């Protein structure tokens, strides 16, 4: 059989999502952000929402998300994505608005905006990439950094007496009456990627149905920040992160 006989439409097993641009991403090899972008692009396209979705990108590694997914985007100040999304959603109720936030954005500088947008039950989707570190600024401690975890600002490991406890922001959000769906997932195996895609889809369906705020946390790796190989990162995440941040739905109504 010749190669031309194999490269045929009917043999295709995978294609790049249409909404994902054909450009180099700035993410490190092994980083979870790229996979999450792909899932978003697929879900938005499959739901036919490309023309009425507006994304809000954070300050953090995903600041340039607007260079990769072909929908309208507003780039928010660090932590303020939920406030920006609140206005975008209320002023254009027929659009679907999502935020894309890191753990520093969601659970440190933007804690107030995140909690209050969710508490108001804004009809938005909050995608929360929890990599337990500040990726963009070079690997400093995040609110979700684990006890004992070494970062640029906890060089001997995070200590409760010095740095307090890892903040379980998603659990807090799940307790608010404004959220309708809060789930914690990962994208480190083919199965988890498929599962997370379903969760993102559900969150977008909720926004369309005006059910309130949906939060999809993705427990993620940052192999550069963690100073591990991608494979080691996945293993470290399974061993350490999932204990503190167990996967599954926290709320689904």
């Amino acid at each position, binding site marked *: 059989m010749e190669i031309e006989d194999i490269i045929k439409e009917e043999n295709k097993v995978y294609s790049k999502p249409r909404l994902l641009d054909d450009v180099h991403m700035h993410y490190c090899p092994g980083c979870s952000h790229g996979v999450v972008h792909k899932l978003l692009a697929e879900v938005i396209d499959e739901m036919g929402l490309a023309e*009425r979705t*507006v994304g809000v990108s954070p300050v953090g590694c995903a600041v340039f998300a607007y260079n990769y997914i072909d929908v309208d985007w507003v780039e928010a100040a660090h932590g303020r994505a939920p406030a920006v999304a609140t206005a975008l959603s209320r002023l254009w109720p027929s659009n679907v608005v999502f935020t894309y936030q890191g753990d520093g954005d969601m659970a440190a500088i933007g804690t107030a905006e995140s909690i*209050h947008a969710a508490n108001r039950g804004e009809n938005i989707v909050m995608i929360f990439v929890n990599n337990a570190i500040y990726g963009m600024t070079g690997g400093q401690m995040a609110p979700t950094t684990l006890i004992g975890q070494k970062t640029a600002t906890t060089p001997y490991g995070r200590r409760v007496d010095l740095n307090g406890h890892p903040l379980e922001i998603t659990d807090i959000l799940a307790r608010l009456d404004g959220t309708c769906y809060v789930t914690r997932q990962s994208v480190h195996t083919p199965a988890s990627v498929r599962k997370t895609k379903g969760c993102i889809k559900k969150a977008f369906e909720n926004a369309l149905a005006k059910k309130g705020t949906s939060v999809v946390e993705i427990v993620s790796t940052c192999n550069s920040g963690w100073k591990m190989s991608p494979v080691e990162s996945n293993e470290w995440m399974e061993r350490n992160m999932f204990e503190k941040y167990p996967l599954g739905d926290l709320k689904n109504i």
Partner: protein
Amino acid sequence: MLPIIKNIYFIHIMKEEVRLMKGNEAVAHAAILYGCDGYFGYPITPQSEVLETLEALMPWETTGMVVLQAESEVAAINMVYGGAASGKAVMTSSSSPGISLKQEGISYIAGSELPALILNVMRGGPGLGTIQPSQADYFQATKGGGHGDYRLIVLSPSSVQEMVDFVGLGFDLSFKYRTPAMILADGIVGQMMEKVVLPPQRPRRTDEEIRRQCPWATTGRNGERKRNVVTSLELESSRMEIINHRLQARYREIERNETRWEEIGVEDADYLIVAFGSIARICAKAMEMAEEKGIKAGIIRPITLWPFPKEAVEKAARGKKGILCVELNAGQMIEDVRLAVHDSLPVEHYGRLGGIIPSPQEIVDALEEKLINNIP
């Protein structure tokens, strides 16, 4: 109760009646009547009546305007940023400490070249300061306030009528130049009640009109165009410099076209008083009292604090014996006045601090003491 208030309100508007209201209330009415799409604010004295009036008028049931009490001034200004990014006419209001919190957001709005309206009803600082009137945020409003090289169009109302008029003017200018505008009011204009004529109701722009007027806005791609991205980020220095040059060119254009001021009795005066906001009206009374003593003073009232009417001040100062800047601060606008007249004549400052409003007599005394008796 509320629906009745609403009905009265619309009947009054139709008749174009003269009404009596507080500056802060008037801003709320003016926002609705302009066809404003959204207001986002957080309570702080002395401007909470803006949000309170809007909540009482319930414009979401009439014009469809969104009104939201945010969790902080930081959230409110970022809601304004989001709304402005999508082409809507959106605004916020606050008072000095809250305006300090908004500065990062204002810088983002300026950097992303978006229209928005911000009202600061100034109170005395620094810190928590006082709830009494002040003009101590002049530097913050006119020299930047937030980070980076940007300017706000700064309008200074001296009456409740101007509070109303500057809502429309502020929105119009901010859309024309795609840059944020600020109404820099003092607590007096916000709190005092005066006669005011409200403009007729303008319809809010339809989504289609917004898409046409603001092809850059994040309205959703809607089939016909490539994606829009609103961002102030540009890591490539050469491109960031080009963006800065573009902003600066626009600021020069605003300086050429939009400088506004008022003159009272300037031509045959010996002395010039420069004052903005409600203080200019106290100065007008002081001017009459001075005249009775044989002192001829004229007034220049800058209406745009940025762009500052430097040419008007320079022209008015020619042949005068001295300038008195009267401000509710320790001497801020005086720096712009000095720059305008290049030390060609004595320029003195008279100000009260901490929320104290000077009487006309005090201003006459200051004029005599600082410029007439003390001439070296």
